[in-house]
């Protein structure tokens, strides 16, 4: 019974007599915090997903019923579709635009520092506030973007976008890309700056054009940054929450709701067991593209 206590005593004694240095245990505080607030709930969630718990009363074991229910719920299927569509639009766009920004900003020119700060700026603002700001700008009839489009006679481009599913999704993706392109850019810039200048010089001597030196020097050397950006953008896009809450609130109806909003609403709706099941499904939806993209970027490195 006293085994852990005597083990601890032994360890403490060894620290005191300096047989083991304190440095051996320096990862322990971070580990304990993480174990308590991340690993433990994660494992507990697996158990909860097999019950009909409502968050208060007693829970009954119902096997995989929650998972069957999920795939029978039309709203849930729509949410999967929305989450995937959003990620399919937003993750590639973020990477391409972020890379273009980085290539533009990499050279030497006046005002480079200020330009970088300006482009990164939107990324430090709360996506919820950003969503509200764009909500004001994009308001039909009164918003600035509507007005600007009216000036060039194209106000039908925006129309009453809030009532139109496709327009809503496009707006969500574009606002997200607008906000986070700077973050992707900074990672690419860091990658570009770690490429030794000699590689470009020898490519030049070999008569390589801009494109071929980009293809054979820049891209392969940029693989670590590409991996970081692709993976973080996939995760971030699939877990999207704030921007959707601010811009469409999942509407009209539930048509633009995403999985993370669904989880929150199910939990608030006292379907605690069910919402943990949804979270597990979402976990696999994120895991699969992440593993695939890690594999792809590792092979090419």
């Amino acid at each position, binding site marked *: 019974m006293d085994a852990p206590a005597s083990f601890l005593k032994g360890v403490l004694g060894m620290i005191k007599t300096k047989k083991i240095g304190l440095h051996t245990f320096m990862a322990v505080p971070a580990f304990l915090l993480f174990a308590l607030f991340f690993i433990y709930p994660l494992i507990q969630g697996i158990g909860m997903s097999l019950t009909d718990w409502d968050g208060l009363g007693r829970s009954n074991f119902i096997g995989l019923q929650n998972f069957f229910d999920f795939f029978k719920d039309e709203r849930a299927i729509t949410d999967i579709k929305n989450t995937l569509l959003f990620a399919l639009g937003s993750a590639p766009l973020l990477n391409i635009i972020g890379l273009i920004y980085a290539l533009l900003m990499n050279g030497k020119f006046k005002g480079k520092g200020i330009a970088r700060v300006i482009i990164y700026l939107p990324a*430090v603002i*709360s996506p919820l506030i950003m969503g509200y700001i764009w909500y004001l700008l994009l308001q039909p009839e009164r918003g600035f973007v509507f007005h600007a489009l009216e000036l060039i006679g194209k106000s039908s481009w925006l129309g009453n976008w809030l009532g139109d599913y496709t327009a809503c999704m496009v707006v969500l993706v574009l606002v997200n890309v607008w906000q986070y392109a700077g973050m992707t850019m900074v990672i690419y810039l860091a990658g570009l700056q770690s490429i030794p200048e000699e590689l470009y010089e020898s490519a030049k001597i070999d008569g390589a054009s801009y494109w071929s030196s980009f293809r054979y020097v820049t891209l392969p050397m940029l693989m670590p940054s590409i991996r970081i950006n692709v993976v973080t953008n996939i995760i971030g896009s699939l877990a999207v929450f704030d921007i959707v809450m601010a811009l469409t609130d999942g509407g009209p109806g539930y048509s633009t709701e995403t999985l993370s909003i669904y989880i*929150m609403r199910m939990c608030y709706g006292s379907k605690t067991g069910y919402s943990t099941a949804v979270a597990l499904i979402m976990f696999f939806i994120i895991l699969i593209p992440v593993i695939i993209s890690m594999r792809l970027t590792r092979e090419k490195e």
Partner: protein
Amino acid sequence: MKTILKVSKYFLIVLICAICLIPFYILIILSLNTPQRIFYEGNMFVPDFFLRNYVDAWNKSHIGTAIINSAVITIVALVIILVFGAMAAYTIARFNYKFNQLVFWLFMSCMMIPGIINTVPLYTLMIKLNAINTLWGMGLVCATIAMPSAVFIFTGFVKSLPREIEEAAIIDGCSWFTAFWKITFPLLKPSVAAVIILNGFGIWNNYAQAVFFLQDSKKHNIPQALSVYFQQFAGAHWNLMAATAVIAVIPVIIAFLMFQKNLMKGLTDGALKG
């Protein structure tokens, strides 16, 4: 030809910057206009300087309390991340123990898991710990979510520092533990800036977890307070919304301008060498 290329490149950069700044500009003008005025009517460059908006926004929303709450949460979380994260990164980077390898592997695999996945079971844990609607509870949750990426950045950075700097101190009678605090920790400064920029703003702006853990209006952080306030006023009082948003955004912009110089250095020195 070369000048045309150069000019068009400049033009493109200016255009991109403008696209990034225009929403902020419109926000500020909106916040300074009278409620009757429609933004694009008349002169778009001269607002009414109707400062009542700010007074009203400050009084009607709980933005003042929310800023303090967000600041407390962010400071609690950042101190934990910086101290525990750097400590863990140091021993992981310097000593190849089984436990260290396990911890690092755990952090790296969990970096792929967004916080929302375990928020619901975490919610029940937080109730048991009496940590719902507390700033320290929210700070701990935010610190946990940010810990893997902080350990990743710090470990890469410590690995880029030569081991000899600590070994010299150890010859002088330091232990590895004290050598960390005296020698290595102060050298981490650039990566500290990167960790603060990459995680601190996320914590300050956290909404997905705040929805669960900060439901009491006295404990709302900035996004929670704003979403509640905006849902009450949405559509009706644009200038008040804009003024509240400006108040909420100012501290973030000041902090960002303070730290941005160190960001690039921190990233290039550490983040990509894991």
